[in-house]
């Protein structure tokens, strides 16, 4: 480096580096560039004073402007909830039918209900409300307790066989294992299958007709159409909560499984239950 390399044409010294005959001129930088560089350093220092920056032992410097990203988040959230306040009030105050009729309210309630559903309901009913064995699918048009918006609201608010809620829905199918003989149970199961399909043994199904009329028709109806006022399932449709085979039906006659749904009114408050109702209603099965 002691030698001074001078480019012949420009008379400017070069860095001494050469690539394929091309040399790099060592022109001095413009002075404003250097000042800009100093300016950025000053800016950086000022920035670290104004904003949280320097790490200390247990925390970091707070910055004289008092900015924090957490504060910014809560400000933003407050602004959003202030924006939504009128919607929330409207949902709390208006009847469900009116919420369904108002496109803005319906959309807002559906989104809010969807979020609440994911947190509170999806554990049993599935994230798409598609249900599972023993847990009803909420998308379909088969409702044990009614699929209009008020019935859905009632079911969510007070639950089914929920302890501690006086308004809860209760349907109590007796355990027919104590009442009917195993043969009668087989017969009635075959008869129930015959509502929608072909029983394994026609004679068995025929025999079951009388057993059915004597024991089941009071709640499930003569044609097996069920009765939503007592929560008796429709036995003449394609949807089966506990399975559709004769064996499944027989098992349910013998010792019925009785699902329990908690009452949500007390836990979530009425606006949230309303939102959930609108969401469930909008899934496609609402009547």
């Amino acid at each position, binding site marked *: 480096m002691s030698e001074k390399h001078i480019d012949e044409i420009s008379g400017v010294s070069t860095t001494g580096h050469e690539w394929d005959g091309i040399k790099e001129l060592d022109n*001095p930088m*413009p*002075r404003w560039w*250097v000042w800009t560089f100093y300016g950025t350093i000053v800016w950086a220092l000022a920035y670290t004073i104004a904003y949280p920056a320097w790490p200390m032992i247990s925390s970091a410097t707070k910055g004289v402007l008092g900015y924090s990203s957490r504060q910014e988040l809560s400000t933003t959230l407050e602004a959003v909830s202030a924006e939504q306040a009128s919607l929330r009030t409207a949902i709390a105050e208006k009847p469900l039918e009116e919420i369904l009729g108002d496109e803005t309210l*319906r959309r807002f309630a559906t989104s809010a209900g969807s979020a609440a559903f994911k947190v509170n309901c999806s554990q049993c009913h*599935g994230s*798409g409300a598609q249900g599972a064995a023993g847990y009803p*699918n909420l*998308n379909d048009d*088969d409702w044990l307790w009614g699929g209009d918006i008020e019935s859905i609201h009632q079911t969510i608010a007070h639950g089914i066989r929920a302890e501690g809620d006086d308004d809860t829905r209760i349907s109590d199918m007796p355990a027919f294992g104590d009442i009917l003989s195993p043969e009668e149970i087989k017969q009635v199961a075959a008869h129930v299958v015959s509502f929608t399909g072909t029983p394994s043994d026609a004679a068995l199904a025929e025999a079951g007709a009388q057993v059915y009329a004597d024991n089941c028709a009071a709640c499930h109806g003569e044609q097996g159409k069920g009765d939503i006022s007592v929560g008796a399932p429709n036995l003449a449709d394609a949807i089966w909560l506990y399975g559709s085979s004769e064996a499944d039906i027989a098992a349910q006659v013998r010792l019925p499984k009785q699902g329990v749904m908690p009452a949500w009114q007390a836990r979530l408050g009425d606006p949230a239950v309303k939102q959930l109702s609108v969401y469930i209603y909008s899934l496609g099965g609402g009547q």
Partner: protein
Amino acid sequence: MTLATDTVASPDVERIDAEAVNSAKTRQPLYAARKKIFPKRASGQFRRFKWIIMAITLGIYYLTPWLRWDRGPYAPDQAVLIDLANRRFYFFFIEIWPQEFFYVAGLLVMAGIGLFLITSTVGRAWCGYTCPQTVWVDLFLVVERAIEGDRNARIKLDSASWSGGKLAKRFSKHVIWLLIAVATGGAWVFYFADAPTLLVNLVTGSAAPVAYMTIAILTATTYVFGGLMREQVCTYMCPWPRIQAAMLDENSLTVTYNDWRGEPRSRHAKKAIAAGESVGDCVDCNACVAVCPMGIDIRDGQQLECITCALCIDACDGVMDKLGRERGLISYATLSDYNNNMALATAGGSTSIDPKLVHGTDGKLTDNVVHFHWQKIFRPRTFVYFGAWSLIGVAMLYALLTRDRLEVNVLHDRNPQYVLLSDGAVRNGYTVKLLNMIPEPRVIFVSLEGLPGGTMQAVGIDQPEGRSLAVPVEPDKLREIRIFVRQPAEYTKDGNERFNFVVEDKASFERDVYHAKFNTPENAR
């Protein structure tokens, strides 16, 4: 023991050839101050041309936001409007939605290739004539000359000690510069909102803070770049001077000092001729240097700093006219023409430049001298650039003229994939997005094509279940609806799972199709 002085004197000690790395001999400054440039006013054909370009470009910039364009009651009537809040871009009869931003990308690609094309033919014409930096510096220089006078007056004023007069001149110059800068930043924001409304809001102080911020930033950059930094921006900040090297070839026009006819330059031509010396056309008057806004000497050859504004051509032509010599000592010339002429003037490189070889006895240039011919613009390279440029242009124009103003996007429910209904029918849910991309309200018909027995119903649209729905969509809006499609049990087992959502505007016959799938318990995964 001997003293140190004895050691130095000792002839046995060898002197080592070493030098301090920071010795004064090799030291050089790490940074250099800007040398002030006082461009003299030029006049001539290129200067005139530049005035016209300046008027056009500034006119376009300042006036465009004020042009009106009637789009009916549902869309803004500003001809050019970038509506960021509603994510729409209006350009006269064209309206662009965000998903159509590729048109803008295409325009930028065209601008890039167009720049290649222009540069490979006429050199850095963009830099010299139309670059905003050049135009605004020109504008700022007009102000400077009007207040402080031309070159000599300005140099004198600059070196004069501070007085009331100097203070007044400097103050008024900077105030006017700042006003221009404010107007520049001010014009920019009008592209993003309704200009007349925004102007009132700006004046009354009720415009959005971002508008004032934008104006403040652009005022600062305009004032600093146009008034204070000028040529520094081109030389040190802009990447284009570096890129241009790859764009130029031996047939590109550049501003050239024709030393094959100018050298040897002489300030005292008559004396020199009397003394029998050979003398070129250049009288070394430095007029070309004085007018240069970059402060360079074009006679040093083509250089990075030269923006090819051609003002030196005007200056030199004026001098040549005065001397009664042919114009074009400095001219737009290609390297190949220059080399030809240089070969003439040096007899094929065997001698130093001899003006007699290119000048006749009457002092005019001989006929052997090559001048630029317009046909040289047409060469493979420019054809490729032009081809690529026009191909993209035609493709974009075609896409623009045939683009859909009615679109449908469909999202098939995945959770659950299907719903079994009590009568054994199967239902699928779809989120259907209808895009009405014209500023008119429309009723869009959504219907099913295929899917035997299938019917549908939309949430929130009170219409009987059927194979077709009439959906009103607001002007220039997207409407999202939930559609439930239902297929009775007797059809679901056919495995006929493909069908189409067809959307139509029955008034304009516009139509779009979405190929959808219907999930049944048999084919669901």
